[in-house]
């Protein structure tokens, strides 16, 4: 019954889903390193933003909130994973085999590999700046750092990325 509680809810959700879901998946994929968690992260972001929709008064801001949430969740996912890796003495052998198809493609993608080699902040700045097409000011706001830091992380990130890609 609650599902139809407000007709606008579902409409708005569907609308943002159609408009942004894929690009947010891409965003998560570039920030993270496996497709399975990407989908989880984006789903969680949608659920959070939409169930707290009262705070998102301006529909124009929905995308910004979604992106921000994806970035934050990706961070905590990575942090969790790093923690998990530290706790596990050796990597799980079946991890790779569970991932198929599009996954392999991602694995092979030099850019993804290079991105993964970057510092987290650098990666975030580059992905938001170039994949999400955000301005430096928007990136600064989304990441909660100064504009100067955005520029610094960005240019240093690009340089590091080039080095990494040339090496590969």
């Amino acid at each position: 019954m609650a599902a139809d509680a407000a007709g606008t809810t579902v409409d708005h959700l569907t609308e943002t889903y159609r408009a942004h879901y894929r690009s947010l998946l891409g965003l998560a994929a570039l920030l993270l390193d496996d497709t399975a968690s990407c989908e989880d992260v984006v789903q969680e972001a949608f659920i959070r933003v939409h169930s707290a929709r009262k705070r998102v008064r301006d529909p124009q801001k929905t995308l910004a909130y979604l992106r921000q949430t994806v970035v934050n969740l990706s961070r905590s996912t990575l942090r969790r994973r790093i923690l998990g890796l530290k706790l596990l003495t050796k990597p799980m052998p079946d991890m790779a085999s569970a991932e198929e198809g599009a996954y392999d493609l991602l694995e092979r993608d030099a850019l993804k590999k290079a991105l993964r080699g970057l510092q987290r902040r650098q990666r975030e700045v580059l992905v938001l700046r170039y994949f999400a097409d955000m301005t430096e000011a928007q990136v600064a706001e989304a990441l909660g750092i100064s504009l100067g830091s955005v520029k610094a992380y960005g240019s240093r990130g690009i340089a590091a990325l080039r080095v990494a890609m040339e090496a590969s």
Partner: protein
Amino acid sequence: MSPGDEPRERFERRERHERNEYDAYFEQDEFDEQAGNTNVNDGPPHRRTGAENEGEGDEALRQLMRQAVADIEPSDGSLDKLRRAVPARRARKRQALVGGIAASVLVALAVPAALHVANGGISGVDPAIAGHSEAEHSVAGTSSASADAGRSKQVGGTVGGSGGRTGTGRTHGKPATPSPDATEAVTSPTCAADELTATASIGNPDADGKVYGSFRVSNISKDSCTVDGPGTVQTIAQGAADATKVSVVDHTKGDAATGLPDPSTEVDQIVLKPGMAYEIRFAWVPSAACTPSGGGTGSTGGDATASPSPSPSASGGGSTGGTGGTADHAAATSTATTSSGMSTQMGTGTDAGTGTGGSGDGSVAVSHTAEPGDPSAAATIANACAGTVYRTGVLPASSP
């Protein structure tokens, strides 16, 4: 050569030309990053030189990034999953909030109580026994609120654990009444009377004589519109029914109308898409049986008692008893044939009845008028003389 190689080369080629510039820039920047120096933010001159060429390299990087994730597709049914998950999360948040309030109230009550028990050991209050009685308390709360088992279970658990002493059903029911969903920004115009149509339906009386029914108001226009009020519910006492003993009250948690949904599921306003409907549900809870202003005769009543035949076709000699009896039975449905089986049980209860059978029948018409002032729909509760109509607010209808 894959399609990804072309932008990659462009991206890397630029690097060979410009790395020195970047390096120079970073060296300076290294010191200023944390300080957020505005000179750096505005960009030193050589940065601008880089920016002239930036167009191509940036574009290449954009392409590379898009290519890298081009193969990622949303998994099947992810939208459906979201559609289910969002309201579920919202409900859970609401519950957590309500649960938190209830828990803090209980803690506030439990701490002094625990101190009291701890200090007054001699008074013979055994903490174990106290805990036990509280546990029963919470169980009672749960069962009376069976319509919302999930929530009351949660709160019930809190009560059992912390040993508070409030009646659970009430504490958590109240804050939830104004549904947060209802305050969503709504763009649709208010529904006009001619955009809506109303129908009524009514069920059979249950063992206690309670009768449940509902009014369904649908949007028959071509546009979405908003209904922002619960409308009115009125009763008209007919026949032997006593208008002064029939009242309409809003359904609250824990009242006699246990079959109605939890008031927290009501919404203050609802957007009706074309064809969508909402429901107002109601329950008739009889307070007294009809006074037989003219029931069946005592003797026929007696006859009927003598033959407590469960078959509905017990109308042979008991047909008068049947009709007479219905007047006494608080909420049997409509005709004598269906109710004769039940009326036999009540036959003995009346000993004063004379006159013609059937004239003692009372019924109560329950009508609902939607918020715009129209349309209306009415349902008639047969064999009802005195009692209370519990009504809900606007409930989203589950299916068209």
